[in-house]
C-alpha cells in the first residue's frame, strides 16, 4: 500500500475506535468510585492469612496461578532471546577494547553496586510486608550487576556473570515455584494451595505461609532472566560481529 492509503486506513480505523472508546468512557463508573467487590474480598482474605501487603497476597496466593503463567512468559522470552540472538555461522566474536573509565565513575559504580544489590535483596525479602517484592527486587538486583560495566569494563562483567549459570538459575527458580505448587497438591489440598506452612505473625518476615517462598522464587527468576536478557543484548551490541569478507 502507498503511504497515502495507509494513512487513510489508519484515519478511518483510528477515528472509529476512538469514537467507540470515548463513548464508553462516560459509561464507566466515575473515577475514584467506592465499589470494588473483588478488591474488598481480596483484602479480607489477605489479612486472614497474615499477609500485610495485599498485592503480594494476590500475586503469590490468591491469584498465584496468573503469576505461574507470567513466570512462563518470562522464561519463554529468555529462552527465545537466547535462541534468537545466538551467534550464527557467519558471525564471530570480537573482544571489545578495554574501555578507559574515569576514576570517579569507577568509584561511584563500585560503591553503588553493593548498595543496589542489597537494596534489591531487601526489596525481594520484604515483598509480603511492604511495597515491592520479587519482580521489583529482581530487576533492581540484576540491573545493579550491570553497574560493573560502568565501573570496571565489559570483561570484568563477563567474569562475574557466567551466563550459563544464570540460565540454569532461571530454570531452577521456575522449578522451585512449580515444586511449591505441587507440594500444595500432594499435601492433600490443591495445586498452589497456601496451606502447608503456618501463616505466622502479621507483619513479620515469616508471615503469609508460602507467599515468601513463591516471592523468593519469582525474585530469583526475574533477576536471572534480566541478567540473561541484558547479557544477550550487550553481547550483540559489543561483541558479535559479522564475519568480514562474507
Amino acid at each position: 500500500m502507498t503511504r497515502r492509503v495507509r494513512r487513510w486506513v489508519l484515519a478511518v480505523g483510528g477515528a472509529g475506535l476512538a469514537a467507540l472508546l470515548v463513548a464508553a468512557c462516560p459509561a464507566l463508573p466515575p473515577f475514584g468510585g467506592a465499589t470494588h467487590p473483588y478488591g474488598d474480598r481480596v483484602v479480607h482474605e489477605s489479612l486472614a492469612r497474615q499477609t500485610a501487603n495485599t498485592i503480594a497476597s494476590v500475586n503469590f496466593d490468591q491469584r498465584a496461578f496468573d503469576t505461574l503463567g507470567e513466570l512462563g512468559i518470562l522464561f519463554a522470552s529468555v529462552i527465545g532471546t537466547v535462541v534468537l540472538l545466538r551467534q550464527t555461522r557467519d558471525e564471530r566474536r570480537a573482544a571489545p577494547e578495554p574501555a578507559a573509565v574515569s576514576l570517579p565513575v569507577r568509584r561511584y559504580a563500585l560503591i553503588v553496586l553493593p548498595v543496589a544489590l542489597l537494596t534489591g535483596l531487601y526489596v525481594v525479602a520484604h515483598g509480603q510486608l511492604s511495597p515491592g517484592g520479587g519482580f521489583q527486587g529482581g530487576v533492581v538486583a540484576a540491573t545493579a550487576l550491570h553497574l560493573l560495566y560502568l565501573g570496571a569494563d565489559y570483561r570484568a562483567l563477563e567474569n562475574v556473570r557466567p551466563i550459563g549459570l544464570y540460565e540454569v538459575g532461571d530454570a531452577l527458580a521456575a522449578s522451585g515455584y512449580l515444586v511449591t505448587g505441587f507440594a500444595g497438591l500432594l499435601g492433600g489440598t490443591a495445586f498452589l494451595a497456601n496451606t502447608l506452612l503456618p501463616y505466622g505473625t502479621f507483619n513479620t518476615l515469616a508471615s503469609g505461609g508460602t507467599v515468601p517462598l513463591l516471592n523468593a522464587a519469582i525474585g530469583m527468576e526475574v533477576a536471572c532472566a534480566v541478567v540473561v536478557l541484558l547479557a544477550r543484548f550487550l553481547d550483540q551490541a559489543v561483541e558479535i560481529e559479522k564475519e568480514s569478507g562474507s
Partner: protein
Amino acid sequence: MNHLLPLLVAAPLLGAALLVAGGRRLPRAVAEPVGCVVSAGTAALAIVLLLNSSPPLVEWVGGWAPKDGESVGIVLVGDGPGLGMAALASLLTLAALVYSWRYFDEPPRRHAGSFPALMLLFQTGMCGFAVAGDLFDAFVFFELMSVVAYALTGHRVEEAKAVQGALTFGVVNSLGAYAMLLGIALLYARTGELAMVKIGRGLDAHGGPDALTLAAFVLVLTGLLVKAAAVPFHFWLPDAHAVAPTPVCMLLSGVLVEMGAYGVWRVYGTVFDGPGGIPAADVERALVVLGVLTGLVGAVMCWYQRHIKRLLAYSTVAHMGLFVIGIGSLTPEADDGTALYILGHAGVKAALFACTGILLDRYGSVDEHALYGRARSLRGVAVLFVLGALGLAGLPPFGTGLGKAVTEEAVGGPLSVVFVVVSAVTAGAVLRVAAHVFLGAGPEPRDVSAYETTGIREEPETRHRLSRVPDTMTVVPALLLAGSLAVGAVPGVARLVGHAVSEAGSGGAFTSPHWTPAGVLLGLLSTVLALGLAALAVSRPEPFGEQPWTEPLRRLQSGHIGDYVAWTLAGATLLGALALPGILS
C-alpha cells in the same frame, strides 16, 4: 479428578524448566526424548481428564473454592471443548516433536534443550488458555502462547523471511493482546469481577448493553480475532506461517489460530451471552460477515500462491473463515460441526505441512514452479499429500468432511455455498501443487506476477539435504491423516464431541452429529469441484493463472507492519459498526 487440571499447565512447564536446567552439557539425544515424554504425558493427562469431563470439571486453583458464591481465586474449567482443545494441542505438540526428532535443524550451540523446551512452553500456553475460566488468566496464557510462537517462528534466524515474519507476527499479535487487556479492564470496571461467568452475570445485573459493553466486546474480540486471523486482522498469518520451521507450522496452523476461534466461542458464551451482553443477532451479523470475508479472501489468495507453505497458510485463513461462520451462527449444531471441523482440519493441515517440510529438506525449495516434476520419486509422500488435499476438500469420511457437512446443514442456505466454494478452491490449489510437483503434469508453470513471494532458495531445515526421507517424517503425517479420518469415520467420536460441546454450550439440549446423505453429497461435490479445478489449472494454465482483478488484493498483503496495524484498527472499527445496531435500539 478436578485437582489435576492445573497439572496440564504445570507438567509441561516443569519439563521445559528441567530441560533448561540441564544446562549447556545436556546432549540432544537426551533433550528430545525428555521433551517427547513430557509432552506425551501431558497429552495422556488431557485425554484422561477429557474422558472424565462429564459433568465438567471445575477447579479453584490454590483451594480458593467460593464461600457464599464468592471467591478470590482463579477458576479453571475442564469441560469437553476446553479439554478437547488442550488434548488436541498436546497431541499436535507431540506430533511436531516426533516429526522434528533428530533431523530438525542443528540446535543452537550449547542449547540443545531450547527447541523442545520452547515447544513444551507452547503446549503450556495452549493448555492454560484452553482450560481458563478467568478472563485475566486467559489473557496471561494467551500471551504465553503468543510469546513462544514469536520465538519459534523466528527460530531460524539466518532466514531473512523468518525474522521479518516473526516480527510482524509479534507486533500485530501483541497489539491485539493489549486491546484485549483494555477490554478486560473495561469489563472489570463495570462488574468488579474477573471470572468469566461472574462477569457475564455482572453485565446482566447492570441492565441492557450500552457503549461500554460494545467497547469491551470489540476490544476483547479484536485480540481473539487477531489470533484467529479473521479478515482484516489476518495479514500476519501468511507471513508468519510460511516462514516458521515446519514442525512449528504444524502447530500454528493446526491449533494455535483455532485457539482464537475457541476463545471467541468461550468468551461469547460466558461473558456476552446474557441480556446484558451483546444481542445474539448482532454477534451473528458481525461474526458471519467477517467469516464470509475471511473465507473468500483466504480462498482467492490461496489459489494464487506458488510458495507452498504460504498457500497452506492461506488455506488456514480460508478455513478459519468457515470456523468463524460456524461459531457465529450461534446454534448448537453449528458448534458441534465446527468442533469436528477443527479436529479434522488440524490433522489434515498438520499432515500437509509435514509433507511440505519433506519437500523442503529434500529439494531445498518450497516453490511450486521450481519443484515442477522434481518430486516424482517420492511416491509415499505424494500419496499422503493428495490424501491431505482430499481431506481439505471434505471428502467423506474424513473428519473435515463430517464437520463441514454438519456445519453446512446448520447454517443452511447461501452460507453452505461459501463452505463448498472455499473448501473446493483451497483443496484445488493443493491438488494443483500435487500434480505439478509430484507428477510434473501439464505444461511447466511460468512466472507471471512480480508481486509475490516465491519459495526458491529456502534453506533446508535438516543438517544436510536429505537423501532419503527418515521414517519419523512420514509416519507422523500418516498418523495425523489417520486421526483426521477417525474423527469422521469412527461413529463414537462424533457423538462424544457433540455431547461434550452441547453440555458446555447450550446445556441440556444434546445433539448428536452424524453423516446425512446431503452431507455426503456436499462433501463429494466439494471434492469433485476441487479435482476439476486442479485438473483445469494444470491443463490450461492461462484462464486460471494470475488475474488483473486480484492484483489490488495481493497488494494489500504488503509485508509492512504499519499496514497491518492500520488494518487491525480498521477491523476493530468494522467489528464495532457491525455490532452497533443492537446497542442503539
